[in-house]
């Protein structure tokens, strides 16, 4: 396990700016302490390890990356299955389309790179070569949202869910933490068609203490119950939403928290129940509020009787640079900020 540091540690910044390829581990280490838990032991980044375990039993699995084998830990796969690992260098479009070619010949390719350089840079390749011919390509977009902090907008992905969600026949899913990612990867093997799997930093605070055995695409998980409002969230925001729910509970507000891991297909039933059984609906996402989870939920709610509703996320802006924890606090995407937004929505 790597030693932990806070992103405010300026000594770490130097290492971070040396690059993410060669010094990927350093970069991850420094980008990972968010959510106000600087001294916790970092959770493992299990992407490569879990895929290697699955590949022990499934010869269809191949893993591709674009010069980020360290940052996304696909190097753990490379060590165990070198003949089924392909580093395409900094050529993401070629990687995604070649993955489609591999899939057409019977493989299940997992193509991993930063979300900014997969879903956004190679959006057309995902649509045209993966989704349209229904190739079982799994595009893994890591370091999504603004988790790249002061790397800035070029490395942020606050539009990826919106872009991917409009593509027909594409499954869009966000992994919540390490155990949840394991469940997503395992379930992905039997799902037809292409898939976009969105990860945050990959070493995210724990939500699921064990691998959720009941994970299914298109079925949301209710992680905390309450009647005053429902917080519908996904991926990196699940942990702070749960923490916000605990803070709200302390002041007498009972919040239901739903992990809407799959944005497409969307679990509409859970939204219907939230509307019927709770007083308000709040969506929380590490994404632009245009086009992502909030929009997806709004598309369902607009055809139903009205209750207070608010989309919380990045309000259609390019975000500032800064350490991730500072960004989450500034944009009110930490537990404190989310709880405050919930109170505003309830008028309390």
């Amino acid at each position, binding site marked *: 396990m790597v030693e932990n540091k806070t992103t405010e540690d300026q000594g770490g910044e130097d290492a971070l700016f040396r690059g993410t390829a060669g010094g990927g581990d350093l970069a991850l280490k420094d980008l990972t302490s968010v959510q106000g838990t600087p001294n916790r032991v970092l959770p493992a980044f299990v992407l490569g390890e879990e895929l290697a375990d699955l590949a022990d039993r499934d010869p269809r699995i*191949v893993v591709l990356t674009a010069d980020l084998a360290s940052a996304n830990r696909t190097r753990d796969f490379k060590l165990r299955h070198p*003949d*089924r690992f*392909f580093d*395409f*260098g900094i*050529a993401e*479009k*070629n990687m995604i*389309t*070649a*993955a*489609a*070619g*591999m*899939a*057409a*010949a*019977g*493989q299940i*390719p997992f193509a991993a790179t930063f979300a900014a350089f997969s879903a956004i840079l190679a959006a*057309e*390749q995902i649509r*045209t*070569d993966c989704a*349209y*011919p*229904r190739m079982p390509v799994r595009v893994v977009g890591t370091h999504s949202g603004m988790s790249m902090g002061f790397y800035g907008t070029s490395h942020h992905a606050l539009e990826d869910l919106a872009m991917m969600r409009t593509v027909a026949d594409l499954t869009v899913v966000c992994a919540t933490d390490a155990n949840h990612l394991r469940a997503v990867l395992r379930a992905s093997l039997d799902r037809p068609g292409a898939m976009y799997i969105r990860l945050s930093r990959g070493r995210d605070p724990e939500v699921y203490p064990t691998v959720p055995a009941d994970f299914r695409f298109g079925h949301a998980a209710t992680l905390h119950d309450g009647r005053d409002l429902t917080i519908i969230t996904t991926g990196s925001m699940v942990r702070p939403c749960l923490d916000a729910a605990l803070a709200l509970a302390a002041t007498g507000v009972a919040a239901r928290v739903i992990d809407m891991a799959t944005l497409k297909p969307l679990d509409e039933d859970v939204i219907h129940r939230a509307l019927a059984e709770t007083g308000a609906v709040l969506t929380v996402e590490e994404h632009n509020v245009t086009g992502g989870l909030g929009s997806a939920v709004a598309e369902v709610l607009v055809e139903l009787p009205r209750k207070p509703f608010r989309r919380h996320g990045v309000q259609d802006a390019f975000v500032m640079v800064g350490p991730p924890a500072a960004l989450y606090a500034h944009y009110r995407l930490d537990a404190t900020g989310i709880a405050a937004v919930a109170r505003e929505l309830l008028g309390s």
Partner: protein
Amino acid sequence: MSTPTKAAGRNVSPEYLADRAKFVRLETLRLARIAGAGHYSSTFSAAELFVSLYYAHLRYNPAEPASPDRDRFILSKGHAAIGLYPILADVGFFDPRALDDYTRLGSPFGDHPDMKRIPGIDFSSGSLGHGLSIGLGMALAGRVQGRNYRVYCMMGDGELAEGQIWEAAMAAGHFRVQGLVGIIDRNQLCIDGPTEEVMAVEPLEYRFTSFGWDVRRIDGHDTAEILDALDGLKPAGHGRPQMIIADTVKGRGVARMELSLDWHVGNLVGQDYDDAVAEIQAGLQPRPREVVRHG
């Protein structure tokens, strides 16, 4: 799993291939008339390449279009599919009558090919610049699986301006992908003019050689030369991807279309249609290879 058979246990004399190339051009006229528009000239430049591949070279079995050991053909210049569909029907992938509704509402056959709806199409295409990456992935999968199929990818010359082509070319050289064969239909024109004026692609041999490819340049309308190049492809194991640059004439076979910028997409009707049919039936005539300018 059955072993794919060599496509042509049939007659592959130069006369037969010339006849099949006429068939491709005539069917292109017929189908374009059904649709009301078609990519004539990009298809005519590739006619001899198409028929050499499908009647004399590729290993496939129309009764088992998904055979894992078959050779694959990726039409990266998907807009020439109008000339490929008739061949796929003719060799037995589907009933030729299915083409009678070409491009009509609900037809499997659009201007660009759909692998999910058309037996024999090995990958959907249409967005230029993608095909070589598809072929690269298929060839790498063949390596993972220990299969010895080849993947042939036909590109247009205009699409070589797409950056992804060079990503794939670089990766194929790097990975030493022996099962990948590129074919460039070097028909000299893209939509806005000669490639060398719009976005120069030459010197092609030098460029691909420097990316790690074995390169051969041929006359893309001479079926004997095409077959010699295909038969001369090095066997699996030599460790380099191979590129065939086929010098062709956009619109070849109908004089008014040859190297003309006016016929990338068109619609022949009436006497013009009949004249074109007669011209195609007469076979390829010697032409000066010089770009014809209009407008």
